[in-house]
């Protein structure tokens, strides 16, 4: 390969990576209005924005990377929608935001986590030896999405959501592997 072709290949490679990144950003863009919805809840805006920003960045990088790293993203988003939206619906529905004095919101996070975890157990790529990445990605994305909605109760809310999700996922994953 001569010098011209080497330069052309380098230029083409840059174009390929830029094209992948652009495509990833476009694929992530529908999540932005969903994240904006999370601001309707009672969680502090800066925490929601930080969590949502992290989610968007992570999902963009996963899509850009591609292959097994992007396979788990769609099931993770679908599963994470439930624990994300449950607390928001409860809060927007008129329930007072009084941290610590009402069990409805943590219960909502737990129920959302359980349902989301069940969905994850059904839809996430089956974990296999040497091929755990898609399953881990799906769980991580679902957890991040749920966290956006359950931030109101801080670590308690997140822990409750995660516990519900793990419970919902574990049983179904075991069944699918058998």
């Amino acid at each position, binding site marked *: 390969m001569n010098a011209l072709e080497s330069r*052309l*290949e380098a230029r*083409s*490679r840059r174009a390929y990576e830029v*094209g*992948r990144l652009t495509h990833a950003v476009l694929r992530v863009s529908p999540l932005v209005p969903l994240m904006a919805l999370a601001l309707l809840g009672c969680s502090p805006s800066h925490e929601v924005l930080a969590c949502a920003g992290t989610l968007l960045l992570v999902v963009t990088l996963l899509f850009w990377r*591609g*292959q097994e790293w*992007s396979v788990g993203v769609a099931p993770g988003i679908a599963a994470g929608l439930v624990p994300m939206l449950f607390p928001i619906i409860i809060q927007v529905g008129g329930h007072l935001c009084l941290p610590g004095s009402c069990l409805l919101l943590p219960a909502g996070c737990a129920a959302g986590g359980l349902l989301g975890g069940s969905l994850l157990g059904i839809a996430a790529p089956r974990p296999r030896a040497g091929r755990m990445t898609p399953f881990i990605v799906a769980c991580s994305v679902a957890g991040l999405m749920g966290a956006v909605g359950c931030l109101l109760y801080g670590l308690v809310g997140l822990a409750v959501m995660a516990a519900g999700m793990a419970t919902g996922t574990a049983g179904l994953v075991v069944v699918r592997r058998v």
Partner: protein
Amino acid sequence: MERGIDPDLQSLMTRLADGDRSAFHPAFAVLWPILRRFTSRHLTPPEAEDAAQEALVKIFRQAARFDPTRSATAWVLGVAGFEIRTVRRKRQRRREAPEMERAVLTRPDPAPSPEDAVVLRDLEDALREALGGLSPEDVETLRLYAHGQRPPTSPGTFRKRVQRALARARVKWRITDERP
């Protein structure tokens, strides 16, 4: 399938769309000669080289969006065909541009030349001086006449006044401008 196109192109483009970077170099090695051959059939050598390079870069930029259910060959040649048409349109515009420039340069300038502007200014000054030498009644008569207005007198009387004022103005004008 076009004769000579590597049958692996479909699998390479599919792998690239999936994000498999190890497919990049083999895809480049397959695509570059294909595109050069294709563009050289339709364009001159320097244009063919440019079009092939632009097509190659565009193909890789859009590789993430490649649909594996579509034919990679058709897609790649479609992009190259678009670049060929773009080069041909630019070539056509370059041919038309000199003709347009000639048309613009030969169009007559509607603005007066500097010499004409000086002559016009001198005439205006002479006319002002000539009118300045007339009596106020003559000036008022000519002003009304120029604006299409009539004083409260009979039309015949006004017509006579206009004729006399114009005659005196012509005399003044000849004296001022020394024109016959």
